């Protein structure tokens, strides 16, 4: 750069003419002078400090509460608690029965648990224990008999007596949902010795019917067995045991599903108002595989599915901006501008994902010198998006279809994307700005990053699905090219397969 040019530039910069301030500006400014110049700020600072203390106190409470919650969750799933559960289950014939109810291999040779449990039903009248017969039957065999009455054991069956049938066939009396277990038992019943033992035990039961009356109607199952009416036969008592075991198993399932529901709180369908619903792709895929046209296609969800997570985790929050021509109909002046916000990954955040930023704003501003029109693909045409709390493990992508004006130079700015947020790590305000120029979107689509190609092609395909029109040969061709170029990318493969299937 010559000194002459430098001087010329300095002259131009210095010689910018300035008009006089508008009349009344000084008065407007003077009217804004606060009444208490010196103290107002102090008062505000004092208020802020109290607010700050309150926020700290609230954070501490929140932290303690979440720690307790996490500990509880952790204890539920820890090996120790699993051991406890096993120990309890091993000592309880009801739980054993419940397990047996769910498994098919009930005929294990494990050490038999004690048959009887103390009565804990609150409404049940006190019952005297009859002396148990001198033969203590092996409980596993007893359970087998209760669960799967074989034809040969009709002596203990409840009235009306079942018709005789061969031992190999289906049991005469069995629980409908124990068909698998029943088959396993029926197969085992071929063992002659076992059959003999079972017969002996059944005879014993018949001779000592009151034994059954001491068996539990568990207190944990009031809804299923509200009135603990003692059944007079061994069959009735065994039925109670089975019902109780089933109830216990059901309540365990309820607890497990409740825990799963808690864990699902972390999964969110939208970030910055942009759909990141993973189910969007699944629904479209299912519909196409069924040979139907998918309805209510969530194009933005598809864009986010295909964009996927970042290849490398950012330290905190990153803003990725990229542009390219449209993947199809390249002759037109439509380009795709994409921005993706990725947050740091936390592999250990299972139950509750911690936030990484608060008050996150992402704004995109298109330059009217270059842009004739624009729209957000699959979403509302908003240019400023807000998220009060940005969690870890988040990747959110927005895609804009932009029509360029003619005769714009490569240096002309096309769009400026700004991300600003409060860092949770140190409380500072972070600002990231990316400017995309016309030249940045001029390179061929095939030279764009894999993430951008997948997101933009997925968007075009998704929009065609939304309009219930076939994919089109150009989309299929692009998808197949992409799949060949990225042979290890499952998403590229899926896109090629589904675009092909939906082109017909």
């Amino acid at each position, binding site marked *: 750069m010559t000194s002459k040019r430098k001087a010329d530039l*300095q002259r131009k*910069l210095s010689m910018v003419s300035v008009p*006089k301030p508008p009349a009344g500006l000084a008065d407007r400014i003077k009217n804004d002078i606060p009444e208490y110049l010196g103290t107002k700020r102090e008062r505000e600072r004092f208020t802020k400090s109290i607010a700050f203390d309150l926020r700290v106190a609230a954070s501490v409470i929140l932290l303690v509460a979440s720690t307790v919650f996490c500990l509880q969750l952790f204890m539920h799933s820890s090996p120790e608690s699993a051991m406890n559960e096993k120990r309890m289950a091993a000592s309880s014939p009801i739980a054993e029965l419940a397990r047996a109810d769910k498994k098919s291999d009930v005929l294990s040779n494990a050490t038999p648990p004690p048959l009887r449990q103390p009565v804990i039903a609150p409404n049940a009248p006190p019952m005297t224990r009859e002396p148990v017969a001198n033969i203590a039957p092996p409980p596993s065999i007893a359970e087998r008999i209760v669960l799967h009455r074989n034809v040969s054991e009709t002596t203990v069956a409840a009235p009306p007596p079942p018709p005789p049938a061969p031992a190999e066939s289906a049991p005469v009396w069995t629980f409908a949902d124990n068909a698998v277990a029943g088959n396993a038992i029926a197969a085992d019943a071929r063992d002659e010795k076992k059959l003999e033992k079972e017969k002996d035990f059944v005879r014993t039961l018949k001779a000592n019917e009151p034994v059954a009356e001491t068996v539990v109607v568990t207190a944990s199952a009031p809804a299923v067995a509200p009135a603990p009416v003692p059944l007079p036969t061994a069959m009735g008592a065994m039925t109670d045991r089975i019902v109780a075991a089933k109830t216990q198993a059901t309540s365990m399932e309820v607890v497990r599903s409740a825990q799963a529901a808690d864990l699902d709180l972390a999964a969110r369908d939208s970030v910055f108002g942009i759909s990141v619903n993973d189910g969007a792709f699944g629904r479209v895929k299912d519909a196409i595989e069924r040979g139907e046209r998918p309805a209510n296609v969530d194009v933005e969800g598809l864009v986010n599915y295909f964009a996927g997570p970042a290849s490398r985790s950012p330290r905190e929050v990153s803003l990725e901006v990229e542009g390219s021509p449209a993947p199809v109909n390249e002759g037109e002046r439509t380009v795709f501008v994409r921005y993706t916000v990725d947050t740091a990954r936390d592999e250990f955040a299972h139950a509750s994902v911690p936030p990484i930023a608060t008050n996150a704003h992402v704004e995109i501003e298109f330059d009217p010198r270059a842009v004739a029109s624009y729209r957000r693909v699959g979403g509302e045409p908003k240019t400023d998006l807000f998220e009060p709390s940005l969690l870890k493990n988040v990747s959110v992508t927005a895609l804009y279809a932009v029509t360029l004006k003619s005769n714009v130079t490569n240096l002309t700015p096309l769009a400026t994307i700004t991300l600003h947020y409060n860092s949770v790590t140190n409380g500072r305000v972070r600002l990231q700005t990316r400017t995309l120029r016309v030249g940045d979107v001029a390179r061929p689509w095939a030279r764009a990053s894999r993430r951008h190609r997948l997101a933009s092609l997925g968007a075009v395909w998704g929009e065609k699905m939304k309009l219930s029109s076939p994919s089109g040969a150009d989309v299929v061709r692009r998808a197949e090219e992409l799949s060949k170029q990225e042979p290890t990318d499952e998403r590229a493969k899926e896109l090629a397969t589904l675009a092909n299937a939906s082109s017909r």
Partner: protein
Amino acid sequence: MLEAVRSGDRAAAEEMVERTYSAVFASLFRLCGDSDLAADLTQETFQKAWAALPNFDGRSQLFTWLYRIAYTTFLNYIRRPRRVTSLDDPDTPDVSDSTPRVDDVLADREEGERLRAAVLQLPEDLRFTVTAHFWGGLAVKEIAEIEEITTVAIRKRLHKAFSILETMLHEEVR
């Protein structure tokens, strides 16, 4: 005067406004290129200045401090989300006076506008240095104090900014 303002003297505050508002307005006009907008931003600058007055330590000159607030206000404005994006061409400036020739005035304004746009596209550190020096009228030493770097570094920044501006303007003309 500053101490009087801090102690709550309204008359001193009004005098401070009288002395500084036109320079603040001029800086903001050069930054944004719009008279009405510059006036609004000037008003906003002073509102922020009143709120920040207790924190002003007096180490820099009053106008240097005000310029820094004005510059931040301008940056906030251009980063502020806009609900409606106008994609029309910017309005043609109204030229009521016919001497000198309308074409010349328009050409000058267009050139000035190009220069302004180019300056605003500079990286943040260079942009602040150029605008503070040429449009805010701050001396190199004052800018160095604000930026907490040496005057040599400021001069290097200016040199780098000139090179980039030269390239950008040359590219646009081509």
